[in-house]
Protein backbone atom coordinates (compact mmCIF):
# COMPACT_ATOMS: atom_id res chain seq x y z
CA UNK A 1 0.00 0.00 0.00
CA UNK A 2 1.68 3.17 -1.22
CA UNK A 3 0.78 6.64 -2.35
CA UNK A 4 0.82 6.72 -6.15
CA UNK A 5 3.85 8.55 -7.48
CA UNK A 6 2.51 8.45 -10.99
CA UNK A 7 -0.81 10.05 -10.04
CA UNK A 8 1.00 12.66 -7.95
CA UNK A 9 3.16 13.54 -10.94
CA UNK A 10 0.11 13.81 -13.19
CA UNK A 11 -1.57 16.19 -10.72
CA UNK A 12 1.61 18.23 -10.31
CA UNK A 13 2.22 18.54 -14.05
CA UNK A 14 -1.39 19.56 -14.58
CA UNK A 15 -1.04 22.33 -12.00
CA UNK A 16 2.07 23.53 -13.80
CA UNK A 17 0.10 23.31 -17.03
CA UNK A 18 -2.45 25.86 -15.86
CA UNK A 19 0.31 28.25 -14.81
CA UNK A 20 0.55 27.62 -11.06
CA UNK A 21 3.68 29.37 -9.78
CA UNK A 22 3.07 29.22 -6.03
CA UNK A 23 1.87 26.28 -3.97
CA UNK A 24 1.05 26.39 -0.29
CA UNK A 25 0.89 23.16 1.62
CA UNK A 26 0.42 21.42 4.92
CA UNK A 27 1.39 17.79 4.45
CA UNK A 28 -0.55 14.62 4.93
CA UNK A 29 0.22 11.13 3.69
CA UNK A 30 -1.45 11.40 0.28
CA UNK A 31 0.28 14.70 -0.46
CA UNK A 32 3.90 13.68 0.19
CA UNK A 33 4.93 13.14 -3.44
CA UNK A 34 3.13 16.27 -4.60
CA UNK A 35 4.95 18.35 -2.00
CA UNK A 36 8.31 16.75 -2.90
CA UNK A 37 7.73 17.63 -6.55
CA UNK A 38 7.08 21.25 -5.56
CA UNK A 39 10.21 21.17 -3.37
CA UNK A 40 12.41 19.94 -6.20
CA UNK A 41 11.04 22.38 -8.77
CA UNK A 42 13.23 25.50 -8.94
CA UNK A 43 10.43 27.40 -10.72
CA UNK A 44 7.86 26.76 -7.97
CA UNK A 45 7.44 28.84 -4.83
CA UNK A 46 6.45 26.41 -2.07
CA UNK A 47 5.06 27.92 1.14
CA UNK A 48 4.76 25.48 4.01
CA UNK A 49 2.05 26.89 6.24
CA UNK A 50 1.53 26.24 9.93
CA UNK A 51 -2.23 26.23 9.47
CA UNK A 52 -4.21 25.90 6.26
CA UNK A 53 -6.14 29.14 6.75
CA UNK A 54 -2.91 31.08 6.22
CA UNK A 55 -2.89 29.72 2.68
CA UNK A 56 -6.10 31.61 1.88
CA UNK A 57 -4.35 34.91 2.59
CA UNK A 58 -1.20 33.83 0.76
CA UNK A 59 -3.16 32.81 -2.34
CA UNK A 60 -5.19 36.02 -2.18
CA UNK A 61 -2.00 38.10 -2.05
CA UNK A 62 -0.58 36.14 -4.97
CA UNK A 63 -3.76 36.63 -6.97
CA UNK A 64 -3.87 40.38 -6.36
CA UNK A 65 -0.24 40.45 -7.50
CA UNK A 66 -1.14 38.61 -10.71
CA UNK A 67 0.17 35.13 -9.84
CA UNK A 68 -1.67 31.82 -10.08
CA UNK A 69 -1.44 29.63 -7.01
CA UNK A 70 -2.82 26.39 -5.63
CA UNK A 71 -3.43 25.11 -2.10
CA UNK A 72 -2.58 21.55 -1.05
CA UNK A 73 -4.33 20.28 2.05
CA UNK A 74 -6.42 17.46 3.41
CA UNK A 75 -10.13 17.80 4.05
CA UNK A 76 -9.49 18.55 7.73
CA UNK A 77 -7.25 21.41 6.63
CA UNK A 78 -10.09 22.67 4.47
CA UNK A 79 -12.28 22.67 7.58
CA UNK A 80 -9.57 24.61 9.41
CA UNK A 81 -9.60 27.33 6.75
CA UNK A 82 -13.31 27.92 6.34
CA UNK A 83 -13.50 31.40 7.87
CA UNK A 84 -10.73 32.57 5.56
CA UNK A 85 -12.56 31.07 2.59
CA UNK A 86 -15.85 32.75 3.51
CA UNK A 87 -14.63 36.05 4.96
CA UNK A 88 -11.86 36.67 2.47
CA UNK A 89 -12.03 34.57 -0.69
CA UNK A 90 -15.80 34.70 -1.07
CA UNK A 91 -16.33 38.21 0.30
CA UNK A 92 -13.58 39.68 -1.88
CA UNK A 93 -14.12 37.40 -4.89
CA UNK A 94 -10.71 35.77 -4.86
CA UNK A 95 -10.26 32.63 -6.98
CA UNK A 96 -8.74 29.71 -5.06
CA UNK A 97 -7.64 26.41 -6.55
CA UNK A 98 -7.94 24.02 -3.62
CA UNK A 99 -6.49 20.52 -4.01
CA UNK A 100 -7.99 18.61 -1.10
CA UNK A 101 -7.22 15.01 -0.23
CA UNK A 102 -10.52 13.33 0.50
CA UNK A 103 -9.71 11.21 3.51
CA UNK A 104 -12.27 9.16 5.37
CA UNK A 105 -14.29 7.84 2.45
CA UNK A 106 -14.96 4.25 1.33
CA UNK A 107 -11.95 2.05 2.02
CA UNK A 108 -10.51 4.30 4.74
CA UNK A 109 -8.66 2.32 7.41
CA UNK A 110 -7.71 5.21 9.70
CA UNK A 111 -10.48 5.58 12.25
CA UNK A 112 -9.62 9.23 12.92
CA UNK A 113 -10.31 10.25 9.32
CA UNK A 114 -13.81 8.89 9.14
CA UNK A 115 -15.85 11.74 10.63
CA UNK A 116 -14.23 14.28 8.32
CA UNK A 117 -14.89 12.04 5.36
CA UNK A 118 -18.62 11.98 6.08
CA UNK A 119 -19.02 15.74 6.09
CA UNK A 120 -16.58 16.95 3.42
CA UNK A 121 -19.04 17.12 0.54
CA UNK A 122 -21.95 18.45 2.64
CA UNK A 123 -19.70 21.28 3.88
CA UNK A 124 -18.54 22.12 0.35
CA UNK A 125 -22.17 22.10 -0.76
CA UNK A 126 -23.30 24.26 2.15
CA UNK A 127 -20.63 26.80 1.19
CA UNK A 128 -21.71 26.67 -2.45
CA UNK A 129 -18.20 25.74 -3.56
CA UNK A 130 -17.98 24.05 -6.96
CA UNK A 131 -16.04 20.81 -6.68
CA UNK A 132 -15.22 17.71 -8.61
CA UNK A 133 -13.34 14.47 -7.96
CA UNK A 134 -9.89 13.64 -9.18
CA UNK A 135 -10.38 9.89 -9.35
CA UNK A 136 -8.61 8.73 -12.50
CA UNK A 137 -5.32 9.71 -14.14
CA UNK A 138 -7.10 9.91 -17.49
CA UNK A 139 -9.20 12.90 -16.47
CA UNK A 140 -6.91 14.72 -14.00
CA UNK A 141 -5.40 17.16 -16.49
CA UNK A 142 -8.75 18.05 -18.01
CA UNK A 143 -10.46 18.53 -14.64
CA UNK A 144 -7.67 20.66 -13.20
CA UNK A 145 -7.77 22.83 -16.29
CA UNK A 146 -11.53 23.24 -16.05
CA UNK A 147 -11.39 23.98 -12.31
CA UNK A 148 -8.77 26.65 -12.93
CA UNK A 149 -10.89 28.19 -15.70
CA UNK A 150 -13.98 28.28 -13.46
CA UNK A 151 -12.08 29.73 -10.49
CA UNK A 152 -10.74 32.54 -12.68
CA UNK A 153 -14.03 33.27 -14.43
CA UNK A 154 -16.23 33.11 -11.32
CA UNK A 155 -13.60 34.67 -9.02
CA UNK A 156 -14.48 32.12 -6.37
CA UNK A 157 -12.88 29.15 -4.62
CA UNK A 158 -13.07 25.86 -6.51
CA UNK A 159 -12.17 22.49 -4.97
CA UNK A 160 -10.70 19.32 -6.44
CA UNK A 161 -10.98 16.25 -4.23
CA UNK A 162 -8.12 13.77 -4.47
CA UNK A 163 -9.70 10.35 -4.02
CA UNK A 164 -8.35 7.02 -2.80
CA UNK A 165 -8.79 5.53 -6.30
CA UNK A 166 -6.33 8.09 -7.68
CA UNK A 167 -3.87 8.44 -4.81
CA UNK A 168 -3.55 5.01 -3.29
CA UNK A 169 -2.10 1.87 -4.82
CA UNK A 170 -3.25 -1.17 -2.85
Amino acid at each position, binding site marked *: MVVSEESSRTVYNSLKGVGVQLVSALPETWLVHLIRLAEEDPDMTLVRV*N*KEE*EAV*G*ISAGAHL*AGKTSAMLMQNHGFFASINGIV*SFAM*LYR*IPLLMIISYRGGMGERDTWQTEGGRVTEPVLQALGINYTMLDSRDTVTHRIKEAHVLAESSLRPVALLLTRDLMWED
Partner: protein
Amino acid sequence: MGAVAAELYSLGHRPNFFYLEHAMGLASSTGLGLSLSLPNKKVIVLDGDGSMLINLGSLSTLARYRPRNLTIVIFDNESLLSVGGFPTATSTGTDLEGIARDAEVPQTGTARSVGEFADRFQNALNTDDLTVLVTKVEAVGPPGFHMDLALLENRFQFQRHIRSLEER
Protein backbone atom coordinates in the same frame (compact mmCIF):
# COMPACT_ATOMS: atom_id res chain seq x y z
CA MET B 1 -9.29 45.84 9.48
CA GLY B 2 -11.84 47.63 11.67
CA ALA B 3 -10.46 50.70 13.36
CA VAL B 4 -7.04 50.48 11.68
CA ALA B 5 -8.61 50.40 8.20
CA ALA B 6 -11.08 53.21 8.93
CA GLU B 7 -8.33 55.36 10.38
CA LEU B 8 -6.04 54.85 7.40
CA TYR B 9 -8.93 55.62 5.03
CA SER B 10 -9.76 58.80 6.97
CA LEU B 11 -6.22 60.05 6.29
CA GLY B 12 -6.82 59.82 2.54
CA HIS B 13 -7.31 56.80 0.35
CA ARG B 14 -4.74 55.83 -2.26
CA PRO B 15 -5.01 53.16 -4.97
CA ASN B 16 -2.17 51.16 -3.39
CA PHE B 17 -4.16 50.69 -0.14
CA PHE B 18 -6.05 47.43 0.32
CA TYR B 19 -8.34 47.26 3.35
CA LEU B 20 -8.88 43.73 4.59
CA GLU B 21 -12.13 43.97 6.49
CA HIS B 22 -13.51 41.15 8.56
CA ALA B 23 -11.04 38.33 7.76
CA MET B 24 -9.21 38.60 11.09
CA GLY B 25 -5.65 37.34 11.06
CA LEU B 26 -5.11 37.09 7.34
CA ALA B 27 -3.54 40.51 6.72
CA SER B 28 -0.05 39.19 7.50
CA SER B 29 -0.61 36.09 5.32
CA THR B 30 -1.81 38.32 2.50
CA GLY B 31 1.32 40.41 2.94
CA LEU B 32 3.38 37.22 2.59
CA GLY B 33 1.60 36.28 -0.65
CA LEU B 34 2.02 39.80 -2.02
CA SER B 35 5.66 40.18 -1.03
CA LEU B 36 6.68 36.76 -2.42
CA SER B 37 4.88 37.57 -5.68
CA LEU B 38 6.26 41.12 -5.97
CA PRO B 39 9.90 40.82 -4.89
CA ASN B 40 10.75 44.26 -6.26
CA LYS B 41 7.97 46.13 -4.45
CA LYS B 42 7.78 47.17 -0.82
CA VAL B 43 4.78 45.67 0.98
CA ILE B 44 3.55 47.14 4.27
CA VAL B 45 0.91 45.48 6.45
CA LEU B 46 -0.86 47.48 9.17
CA ASP B 47 -2.54 45.11 11.62
CA GLY B 48 -4.08 45.06 15.09
CA ASP B 49 -2.97 43.10 18.15
CA GLY B 50 -6.15 41.00 18.19
CA SER B 51 -5.74 40.16 14.52
CA MET B 52 -2.13 39.12 15.05
CA LEU B 53 -3.04 37.03 18.10
CA ILE B 54 -5.68 35.08 16.18
CA ASN B 55 -3.06 33.89 13.67
CA LEU B 56 0.22 33.78 15.61
CA GLY B 57 1.46 30.94 13.42
CA SER B 58 1.72 33.46 10.62
CA LEU B 59 4.69 35.16 12.33
CA SER B 60 6.53 31.86 12.18
CA THR B 61 5.65 31.30 8.50
CA LEU B 62 6.76 34.86 7.70
CA ALA B 63 10.09 34.34 9.40
CA ARG B 64 10.59 31.07 7.55
CA TYR B 65 10.26 32.67 4.12
CA ARG B 66 11.72 36.00 5.20
CA PRO B 67 10.50 38.22 2.38
CA ARG B 68 12.93 41.13 2.60
CA ASN B 69 10.44 43.54 1.08
CA LEU B 70 7.82 43.11 3.83
CA THR B 71 7.20 45.25 6.92
CA ILE B 72 4.48 44.38 9.40
CA VAL B 73 3.29 47.12 11.75
CA ILE B 74 1.12 45.91 14.61
CA PHE B 75 -0.88 48.69 16.28
CA ASP B 76 -1.13 47.22 19.75
CA ASN B 77 -3.88 48.99 21.68
CA GLU B 78 -4.17 45.97 23.99
CA SER B 79 -7.80 45.66 23.03
CA LEU B 80 -10.38 44.59 20.49
CA LEU B 81 -11.27 48.22 19.98
CA SER B 82 -13.51 47.65 16.97
CA VAL B 83 -15.84 45.36 18.90
CA GLY B 84 -16.38 46.87 22.32
CA GLY B 85 -12.81 47.43 23.45
CA PHE B 86 -12.39 44.22 25.40
CA PRO B 87 -8.78 43.67 26.51
CA THR B 88 -6.53 41.26 24.60
CA ALA B 89 -3.74 39.09 25.96
CA THR B 90 -1.20 41.84 25.28
CA SER B 91 -2.88 43.74 28.16
CA THR B 92 -1.70 41.05 30.56
CA GLY B 93 1.80 40.86 29.17
CA THR B 94 1.87 38.83 25.94
CA ASP B 95 4.74 40.38 24.02
CA LEU B 96 4.14 40.30 20.28
CA GLU B 97 7.62 41.59 19.52
CA GLY B 98 9.09 38.81 21.67
CA ILE B 99 7.01 36.21 19.82
CA ALA B 100 8.14 37.60 16.46
CA ARG B 101 11.78 37.61 17.61
CA ASP B 102 11.59 34.04 18.87
CA ALA B 103 9.96 33.02 15.59
CA GLU B 104 13.22 34.28 14.04
CA VAL B 105 11.86 37.40 12.37
CA PRO B 106 15.18 39.11 11.61
CA GLN B 107 14.20 42.69 12.49
CA THR B 108 11.80 43.45 15.32
CA GLY B 109 11.03 46.47 17.45
CA THR B 110 8.54 48.07 19.80
CA ALA B 111 7.68 51.76 19.52
CA ARG B 112 6.09 53.60 22.43
CA SER B 113 5.88 57.12 21.09
CA VAL B 114 5.23 58.85 17.78
CA GLY B 115 8.90 59.78 17.55
CA GLU B 116 10.04 56.19 18.18
CA PHE B 117 7.56 54.93 15.61
CA ALA B 118 8.79 57.39 12.98
CA ASP B 119 12.43 56.38 13.56
CA ARG B 120 11.83 52.65 13.57
CA PHE B 121 9.46 52.71 10.63
CA GLN B 122 11.91 54.74 8.56
CA ASN B 123 14.59 52.29 9.56
CA ALA B 124 12.41 49.38 8.40
CA LEU B 125 11.91 51.07 5.03
CA ASN B 126 15.63 51.68 4.66
CA THR B 127 16.72 48.16 5.63
CA ASP B 128 16.12 45.48 3.13
CA ASP B 129 14.77 42.84 5.50
CA LEU B 130 11.58 41.44 7.01
CA THR B 131 10.54 43.65 9.91
CA VAL B 132 7.84 43.36 12.58
CA LEU B 133 7.28 46.65 14.38
CA VAL B 134 4.94 46.53 17.36
CA THR B 135 3.55 49.99 18.08
CA LYS B 136 1.91 50.59 21.41
CA VAL B 137 -1.06 52.93 20.95
CA GLU B 138 -3.97 54.20 23.02
CA ALA B 139 -7.25 52.41 22.57
CA VAL B 140 -8.95 55.22 20.68
CA GLY B 141 -10.23 54.96 17.16
CA PRO B 142 -11.99 57.08 14.56
CA PRO B 143 -15.49 58.35 15.39
CA GLY B 144 -17.07 56.09 12.78
CA PHE B 145 -16.02 53.13 10.64
CA HIS B 146 -17.88 54.12 7.49
CA MET B 147 -15.76 54.11 4.35
CA ASP B 148 -17.18 55.41 1.09
CA LEU B 149 -15.46 52.63 -0.80
CA ALA B 150 -17.06 49.25 -1.43
CA LEU B 151 -14.92 46.23 -0.56
CA LEU B 152 -14.97 44.96 -4.12
CA GLU B 153 -14.28 48.38 -5.59
CA ASN B 154 -11.17 48.59 -3.41
CA ARG B 155 -10.14 45.02 -4.27
CA PHE B 156 -10.31 45.51 -8.05
CA GLN B 157 -8.76 48.97 -7.88
CA PHE B 158 -5.84 47.59 -5.87
CA GLN B 159 -5.30 44.68 -8.25
CA ARG B 160 -5.41 47.00 -11.26
CA HIS B 161 -2.96 49.34 -9.55
CA ILE B 162 -0.44 46.52 -9.03
CA ARG B 163 -0.86 45.47 -12.64
CA SER B 164 -0.10 49.01 -13.76
CA LEU B 165 3.09 49.01 -11.66
CA GLU B 166 4.18 45.76 -13.25
CA GLU B 167 3.60 47.12 -16.75
CA ARG B 168 5.74 50.16 -16.13
